[in-house]
């Protein structure tokens, strides 16, 4: 595992993404809420560009005490990203599929040294 320079943190706006290629690996690097996350850009469903679709807050359905629905709401902090091919939705913080946590994108560690951002790949 070597540190691969991705870019400068100051040029990476919050909510922005970069799709990079290191050797044969295609990696999506996200900046969300100040933190960096990097995942394999190959969707576990059919190999689509998993990191290039919508970023959308997690949809939740709160229930009242009598277990009736209060409608669908967006979660305040949990963010997901969606593969544009068939809608596989992954957790931004873990890379896990939101409906089946056993399905997980390959995660790469991201190191920030001063203003420089590196991916360990």
């Amino acid at each position, binding site marked *: 595992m*070597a540190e691969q320079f991705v870019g400068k943190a100051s040029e990476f706006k919050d*909510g922005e*993404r*970069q799709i990079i*290629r290191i*050797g044969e690996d*295609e990696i999506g690097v996200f900046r969300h809420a100040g933190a960096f996350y990097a995942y394999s850009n190959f969707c576990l469903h059919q190999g689509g560009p998993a990191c290039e679709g919508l970023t959308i807050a997690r949809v939740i359905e709160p229930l009242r005490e009598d277990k009736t629905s209060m*409608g669908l709401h967006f979660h305040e902090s949990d963010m997901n990203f969606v593969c544009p091919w068939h809608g596989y939705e992954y957790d931004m913080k873990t890379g896990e599929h939101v409906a089946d946590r056993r399905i997980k994108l390959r995660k790469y560690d991201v190191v920030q040294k001063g203003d420089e951002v590196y*991916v360990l790949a």
Partner: protein
Amino acid sequence: MSSPKGAKAAASKSPVSKSPASKSPASKAKAAPRAAAKPAPAAKKAAARKAPSRAKAGDGDPTPAQKAAFLKALAGGVKPNSAALRKLEEKKGGAFAPSPPAPQRKVEVLRRIPAPAPRLETPETKDALRIAALIESGLARGELDKVQPHAQQALAAALCRLYAANHEMGERYPILTAQGAPVTATDVMVMCGALLKAVDLQVFELGMWQSWSSG
């Protein structure tokens, strides 16, 4: 159960029974020097049989797993900057020079996806949100007559025209979001029916318009 006859036959077939060691003590004494000079065929055979097993169980011999590990290490070669390489260089008489670091793999930026456009909080937006919050809080308290019908008509008309104008300009966004107070399907049908009736339209005409246009 074996018969005495069978036992006799077996004894005659056995190579042990033919060896000098199995004879009487007198003949044994005679045969001893000969046995010492030349090993008996039976003893030879036994030694040959034992030889492979001794090789397997010997203390100094590597086990199959050790052999496999050795071959694997041999195929892998001497790793750079390792103690093994240092020793090898010293034996050769040369100075140990650490091998250069592995070349950095090239990072290629394929695409840059910008962050979604931030929501602008204009003064008009703030006012509209304040009015929406006022109506919602009144509904929660069951105060249905606080916003009089003429005010509702003005709000509905303005919102209808604003949404249609944005739609015409290509600004497509959902009129309702999942956030906030949920709007039920009944609410939507009542409101849509009222809007259609206000402009004297039938549901059939709405369907025709939707099928002919991109709306």
